[in-house]
């Protein structure tokens, strides 16, 4: 897959040209004049400017956010879309940004997804599994596959309407199946039900899975694929202070059991067989 180019050294102000609600989420758009083109799975460290701060002294550190769409303006500038779920002071502050505001960004950072054939020479196509806000990287990967004429099927899962969004904007209806835990639309239940059904259906030998979403979903996907020895790449999350390998804070346990990946530089995309769990630090 398109290899990552190095990120500009430092952070740079980008103009906010749009910000709108989509379902329970928010999408905002930045114009990145300097940055190189990111590849699917990469992320940026964002902080609204001025005053990346709030009541109670947070946010303080920049926030890691995947890009959800890349387009070029008439003048050849990069338009980057970001999909935001307001879960705390950082995402809330980013969601407050309006057209005309400025956002400091560093990146693109991290390693992106491999192509299906790179993971499985037999690969007929790709199965994309997105949960909640995790649909953002899947949307980018989907475009990438379409551009290359690689067949895909997308399975998107959400808790409920309030925790969903960007579906129509980021995904076409064709080849996309939905699961809502509250039965709001599509299958009533987990997106992993759809994945299981699909893997039962086709010949797993030709399957390749890509997933991004909440830890519990990623862990289920990891195990489902491991049991069927289906190659899978997971776009993981972890608290991050820097995003460029400086703080060693983003530890994810290696499969081997000895030591940890530094998610921001070794990931955020890792193969299922590279990690021992997708639940590191969750509820321990």
């Amino acid at each position: 897959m398109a290899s990552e180019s190095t990120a500009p050294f430092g952070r740079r102000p980008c103009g906010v040209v749009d910000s709108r609600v989509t379902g329970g989420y928010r999408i905002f758009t930045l114009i990145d004049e300097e940055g190189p083109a990111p590849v699917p799975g990469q992320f940026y460290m964002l902080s609204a400017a001025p005053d990346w701060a709030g009541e109670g002294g947070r946010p303080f550190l920049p926030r890691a956010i995947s890009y959800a769409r890349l387009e070029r303006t008439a003048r050849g500038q990069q338009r980057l879309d970001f999909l935001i779920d307001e879960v705390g002071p950082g995402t809330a502050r980013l969601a407050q940004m309006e057209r005309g505001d400025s956002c400091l960004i560093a990146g693109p950072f991290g390693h992106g997804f491999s192509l299906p054939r790179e993971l499985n020479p037999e690969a007929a196509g790709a199965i994309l599994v997105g949960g909640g806000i995790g649909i953002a990287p899947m949307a980018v990967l989907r475009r990438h596959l379409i551009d290359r004429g690689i067949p895909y099927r997308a399975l998107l899962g959400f808790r409920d309407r309030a925790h969903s969004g960007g579906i129509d904007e980021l995904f076409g209806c064709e080849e996309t199946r939905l699961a809502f835990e509250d039965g709001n639309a599509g299958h009533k239940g987990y997106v992993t039900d759809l994945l299981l059904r699909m893997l039962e259906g086709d010949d797993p030998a030709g399957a390749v899975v890509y997933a991004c979403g909440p830890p519990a979903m990623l862990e289920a996907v990891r195990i489902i694929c491991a049991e069927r020895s289906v190659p899978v790449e997971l776009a993981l999350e972890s608290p991050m202070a820097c995003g460029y390998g400086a703080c060693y804070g983003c530890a994810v346990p290696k499969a081997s059991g000895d030591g940890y990946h530094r998610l921001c530089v070794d990931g955020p995309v890792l193969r299922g067989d590279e990690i021992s769990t997708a639940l590191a630090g969750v509820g321990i």
Partner: protein
Amino acid sequence: MAISLATDLCGIKLDDPVLNGSGTFDALAARSVFGDALIRDFPFSAYVSKTITRSPRAGNPPHRLWETPSGMINSIGLPGPGLEGFLERDLPRMAELGVPLIVSVMADSREVFGELVEAVAAREEVAGIELNVSCPNVHSGLIVGEQPAETEGLMKALRPLTAKPLIVKLTPNVANPDEVARGAEAGGADALSLINTIKAVAIDPVTTRNWLGAGQGGLSGHAVRPIALAQVRAVSAAVSIPTVGMGGIADGESALEFILAGARVVAVGTENFRDPRAGIEVGEGLVRALERRGFGSLAEAQDSTLS
């Protein structure tokens, strides 16, 4: 003509008084992320490695980070390749950074500390050694850096091993850092750096358990600046060797505060996470701050005593 920031730290010539705090900037990772732009524009006048131990370490289990009001807690646990891996793989690449190298080391006994100092000092790429003494001594069970006598004893044991500058990194978790500082000086330290992080914990709001995998961590960032400033002032007044001041430095104004408090040079830590070029911003801001405050030179500020 702008004020020159050229200075030195116990013999190590520096283009400016802005270093990095150990463990807060992985220059090798940064180089692969940012490419050669990092070298062209290296943010620090000397590079301090993260703390090296004799054997490889995996570091602490997650979570390792927690954001706090105007600061953060980290519980990294010194992951690293160990002495051998560091000397073989990392050090040669650090030499390409083009600035003096200061290697931070930690051990749980004077013997192992000695091994590390000798092995590291033997390498000509290395300009100085920082001793991270915020660790227990296996024999006494005491945290070396909390005990003036332990610290002096350690320095007496290490001093003969090298002529290169030995910098003792003080822990802030003591009643009187100046006493530990005097111990380090008496033992032969060439300089002192402070502050390290302050003991802190975080509670997972959802599980109501410890958030940090190791159960405890260290606070850093803007929030600790006033505490760091007090300790830098107390320590600098107590010893005649130079000090490296750090703790929440975010810009030229805060860097100047540390120099006025008695630090000869400063180090930038947590701010690197917020801005990869923080070191450059601090240096440029320091020139403006010196001018704004009417200082004719950096030395004038370094020599001024706080009253």
